[in-house]
Structures are given as structure tokens and as C-alpha cells.
């Protein structure tokens, strides 16, 4: 995102489509359980999209399909003009737990994706970049610290760096801060926004928190369960960059209420 449009509503018209899903369905257990039905969505370059829905609405299934961890039963999944047929280096992923490995220092954890894909020599070369990333997330000076000396929030910052080290085209975030306390969570969300803007990253967030979805996203995909499908895509036209005090504006409240209403309806079905 360049600064010229930074003050603009940063909805759909931002960039070219990066990630495209067309009529993606997933059925489990010999077609008995339909986890996902005809999900179509497009992520544009530099956009932030959240997906929200009650448990069993197929969020995790969708995320796993997008990450190339499981194949869809039907449908097309295209990332950067290439069908996704397995894990790829242009997909970065982050989980609820930081999942840093305690036998590696922070910086060694961060270059792990490079080590796995390109070997130890490449990982050593990526050290400089890892240091830069640590600097960006505010962990300068913690390069050679082992994870069990890091707090929960610091560990998640480090795992952001690990996700970014391969310069992925899309960031898949699976409730990344839900294990943190609310204060750190708000702070980390603002950090995440800043990092996404600086890196011009395309982000896709799975969350249970309506507030979190609204404050971060350009688009919010509201899912309905049984079978998992898209109920509505809500566009959030709050200006960028978002700040925490926007959470008290009437506009914010309206969007939150609207989504909550949708989710309640979903429960009745």
C-alpha cells in the first residue's frame, strides 16, 4: 500500500487478486459430513480479510485448504496464478501457539523455514534478514535468547518473524493472539496491522472475536455452519491506519452489531 491511498478506505479496490478460491467444497467421512460448501473468495494484494463464525462452520478446514495442508473435495484454489497442490513457500502461516522450538534461539527459530527448504547454508545467509525482522517487531536484543525466556507476546512476535522470513504472498493467521491476555492482544493486533502495511502483506485471519475482526479487516467473511458456507462478506470502511480508539466509534459499533446479529441467526439454524 503506498502512502497516497493510505488515507483512503482500503477495501477491495487495492490490488490485484492474489488468492482466489472458486466453489471450494470439502466433504469428510465418505461424503457424509459437508464441512465446506461452494466457498468462493478473492484476496487482493495488501488487503486484510478475516473469517468469523461459530465452531463447526468450516473455518479451520478452509484455512487448511488454503495452506495446502489438505486438498479440497471440489473447487479451484489459485495463489499467484498457480493452483495450490501442497504447502508452498509463498504461504506463511501462524498459529494460536507460537510453536517456537526450545532448542533453538529466537533467530534460529526464525530462519527455520529457510533451513528446511534451502539448507543450513541458506539459513545462515538469512540471519541478517532475521535480525531486521526482529527489529521490526520490537525484539531487538533478543536474537540469541531461547524461547523459554520469552513472554507469550514476545514469542508470538518471533513467530511473526518466522512467518515473514520467506516473504510469503499471503499470511494465514489461525487465531494468532487468542492465547494472549486482552491487553497484549490489542497491542499485538496493532503491531500486526503495522507490519502488514509495512510489508504490503495480504493477510487472512481466522478469529472468534468480532472486535478483532472489525478493527483489523477490510473484509470480514461471516460463515454459517452445517454445511459451512459464506453467509455474508462485510466490508469495513473505517479509515486506515486503524487505531484502538476507533473501537468506541458508532460506526465500529454498528458493524460489530451487524455481524453479531448474523452470527446469532446462524446459531438458530
Amino acid at each position: 500500500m503506498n502512502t497516497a491511498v493510505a488515507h483512503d478506505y482500503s477495501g477491495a479496490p487495492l490490488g490485484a487478486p492474489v488468492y482466489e478460491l472458486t466453489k471450494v467444497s470439502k466433504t469428510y467421512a465418505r461424503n457424509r459430513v459437508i464441512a465446506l460448501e461452494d466457498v468462493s473468495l478473492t484476496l487482493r494484494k495488501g488487503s486484510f480479510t478475516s473469517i468469523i463464525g461459530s465452531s463447526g462452520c468450516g473455518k479451520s478446514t478452509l484455512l487448511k485448504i488454503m495452506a495446502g495442508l489438505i486438498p479440497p473435495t471440489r473447487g479451484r484454489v489459485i495463489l499467484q496464478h498457480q493452483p495450490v497442490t501442497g504447502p508452498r513457500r509463498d504461504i506463511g502461516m501462524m498459529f494460536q501457539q507460537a510453536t517456537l522450538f526450545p532448542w533453538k534461539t529466537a533467530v534460529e527459530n526464525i530462519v527455520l523455514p529457510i533451513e528446511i527448504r534451502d539448507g543450513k547454508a541458506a539459513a545462515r545467509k538469512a540471519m541478517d534478514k532475521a535480525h531486521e525482522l526482529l527489529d521490526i517487531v520490537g525484539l531487538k536484543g533478543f536474537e540469541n535468547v531461547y524461547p523459554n525466556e520469552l513472554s507469550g507476546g514476545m514469542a508470538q512476535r518471533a513467530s511473526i518473524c518466522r512467518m515473514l522470513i520467506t516473504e510469503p504472498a499471503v499470511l494465514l493467521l489461525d487465531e494468532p493472539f487468542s492465547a494472549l491476555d486482552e491487553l497484549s492482544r490489542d497491542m499485538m493486533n496493532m503491531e500486526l496491522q503495522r507490519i502488514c502495511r509495512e510489508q504490503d502483506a495480504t493477510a487472512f485471519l481466522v478469529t472468534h472475536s468480532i472486535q478483532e475482526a472489525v478493527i483489523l479487516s477490510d473484509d470480514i467473511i461471516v460463515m454459517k455452519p452445517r454445511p459451512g458456507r459464506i453467509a455474508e462478506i462485510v466490508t469495513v470502511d473505517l479509515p486506515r491506519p486503524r487505531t484502538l480508539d476507533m473501537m468506541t466509534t458508532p460506526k465500529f459499533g454498528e458493524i460489530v452489531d451487524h455481524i453479531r446479529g448474523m452470527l446469532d441467526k446462524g446459531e438458530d439454524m
Partner: protein
Amino acid sequence: MTEYQTNQPSDAETVQDTVWVQEVAFIDSVPRWIAMTFVFVTFIGTWQFVTSFGFVSPIILPTPMETLKDVLFVGQNLLTAGYMLEPLWITMKEVFYGFALAILIGFSFGVLVGETAFGEKAVMPYLVAIDTMPKVAFAPLFVAWLGFGIESKVALAAFIATFPIVVGTAAGLHAADENARMLFKTMGASRMQTLIKMKLPTGLPQIFTGIKIGAVGVMAGAITGEFLGGGKGFGELIRVAASQLNTPRVFSLILYLSLIGLALYVIVQWTQRKVVFWQQETVGSHNA
């Protein structure tokens, strides 16, 4: 008029009125070494008492003093390269080879069982079946197969120590959580990379637990092997001393044996601390 009621005492007077004082259990106020010394002194005292007042025949239980004298005698014999050094050396060799073999075989089978579906489905049930057998009963077989030399003792020692290491390794390989597995998948890691860079390091604490249990078993295996299969080790010295009703000697030989066992355990423990440096010290990690 909004006065907030709090639970905090409002002035010093209230504090003095406090009647409920936290009690500290007596044992918590005693340093460990004093508690341990107490147990030791009680034990030796009882021992001294029952032997010196003739409750027990000295053939069955010598006095602490006699035992100590013999411990010193055996110690001197060992230090001056007396006739007991060679048996000690033989037993140590059996323990060492048996332990090395157990680690090698145990780890290999552990990986087979913990990593492959075939191993888990087809091999594990047999391992469990063999593990439930009284392994000492195999000693005559090992003697028949490998002779009266050190080999049959090494085999029995390894046989006993292998299973905990198999179980520890297999459990360790299953210790990695779902997130870590998923993360490695998203990084496009091969099965080998996942095993070496994630599952094995994650499982090291359990693997070491298995090795520590094995270290205890390997001593028992070597000595049992010597009891049942002859040879020239420390076990043979114990057997001879017992047949001569030289009870103090049996006691002191057992003491020196247990020192070897302890040394083995300490070496493994030390290695674990160096290798699994990230593992938090917990009570459970010392004795699995």
C-alpha cells in the same frame, strides 16, 4: 457519600488483632541434609541395636562396624589393584557393552515403532508381549547360545535394558504437538526433516527417561547373568562370598556395585542436562 469497603485492615490495630497465623509444617522448616542424616542415623542405630544385643545372628546380619571394616578392606583391595579389581572390571565391561547395545537397539526399535505405521501396528504388539515376560528367565538360553563368557551377560543386560528405551523413544516421537507438525508441513519439510529436526529433539526428555530406566536394568541384568551363568565378574564374587556365609563381604560388594549403578545414572543425568539443556528441572524428570 460513596465509601468503599475493602478487606484490607484500615489501621495498625486491626493487624495486631489478627488471630489466624499461617502454620508452617515442621518438616518444611528442616533442611534436607538434617532430615537425611536423621534417617541415616536411625537406620544405622537400629542396625547396631539388633545386632549387638543378639536379636539377629551375625551370620545373617553383621554389625555396622564389621561391614564398614569390610567395605574399607574391599576398597583397599580395589585401589591397590588386588584380586577384586579384575572382576569389577569385567562387570563394568558387561554393563558398558550391554548399555551401549541396549541404547542402539532400543533407539532403533523405538524409531521403527514410533515413526512408522507398520512398526506401530505390526511390531509393537510383539514387543509388548516380550516385555511382559520375565526376562531373567532367558538367562540360561543366553548362556546356551553365547557361552559362559562375558557375551551371555552382555546379552541379558542389553535384553533387560532395551525395552524401556524402546518405549521412551516411541513415546518421545509422539510428544510433538499438532501445531508443530502442522508448522513443519507448511514449511514443506520432508518426513526425514520432520523426524530429525522436530520429533526427535521434542522427544529427547522421554528418550532420556527410557535410557535412565534402562541404566538401572542393565546393572541388574549383568549381575543376574553372572549369578546364573558363572563367569568371573563381581556377581561371582558375591555368589562365592554368600556361599561362604561371608555376609559383610556380600554387603560391601553390593555397596560398590550400587556405586557403579549410581555413577552410570549420574552420567546419563549429566548428559541429559547438557543435551536437553532447555528442559525445565522437574521432580518427575529425575525418576521417571
